[in-house]
């Protein structure tokens, strides 16, 4: 049985912090963070329920990679919501922007190597990295994250909805929307 290593990496990433807290290796969440943890969990639950309903109504048969939708997407959504509500603005932008941008670049380079194709496919990741750093200072740049989200939507679904692309879309769109909203938000 072959398991995609990225799948393992992201799953571990999603559970490593809660596990470290249970083992006492990391400080527990304070009361505000616990409430946010609950809120982000509820949103994620709604997402899973609506996704399942969507699949049932459309009579979609989920196989292989499509089943990853119900594992990766909730992990990404919960983490994104939790980070967005817990940390200060600059730290959120740094975490989300650097992780999203770096992952995109990594995927591009791993898929195509250091070729022209790889470098071209790295461009969105590079844009997100640069934009994230500048949006900490210039709020209006947050609009560009929404534009990137719309472009992503167009390119992913212009030929119809494919489950494999839907997974990638959800994984990328959650951080993009959060980055847009956080960037445009005023200082606390």
């Amino acid at each position, binding site marked *: 049985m072959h398991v995609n290593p990225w799948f393992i990496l992201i799953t571990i990433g999603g559970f490593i912090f809660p596990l470290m807290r249970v083992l006492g290796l990391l400080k527990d969440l*304070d*009361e*505000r963070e616990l409430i946010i943890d609950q809120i982000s969990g509820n949103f994620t639950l709604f997402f899973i329920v609506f996704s399942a309903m969507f699949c049932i109504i459309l009579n979609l048969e989920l196989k292989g990679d499509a089943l990853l939708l119900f594992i990766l997407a909730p992990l990404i959504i919960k983490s994104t919501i939790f980070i967005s509500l*817990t940390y*200060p603005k600059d730290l959120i932008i740094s975490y989300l922007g650097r992780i999203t941008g770096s992952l995109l670049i990594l995927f591009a380079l791993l898929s195509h190597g250091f070729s022209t194709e790889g470098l071209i496919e790295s461009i969105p990741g590079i844009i997100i990295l640069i934009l994230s750093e500048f949006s900490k200072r210039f709020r209006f740049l947050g609009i560009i994250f929404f534009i990137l989200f719309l472009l992503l939507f167009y390119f992913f679904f212009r030929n119809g909805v494919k489950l494999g692309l839907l997974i990638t879309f959800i994984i990328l769109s959650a951080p993009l929307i959060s980055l847009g909203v956080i960037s445009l938000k005023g200082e*606390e």
Partner: protein
Amino acid sequence: MKNRIREYRIKNGDITQEELAKRVGVSRQTIIYIENGKFNPSVKLALKLAKALNCKVEDLFELEEGD
């Protein structure tokens, strides 16, 4: 709910939000949210804050009209 945490931080030798957060065992962001009235602490946390700032809970927090 109104609070005077910032005022009492200054009275107690200008303690920083970070320092106060460490003393009561929460994150600095939580102290910021409490000071800005965006988060109401539990009774336990309110008591810890009062103890850390050498005052009574009633000195730190006050109900507003409509609360």
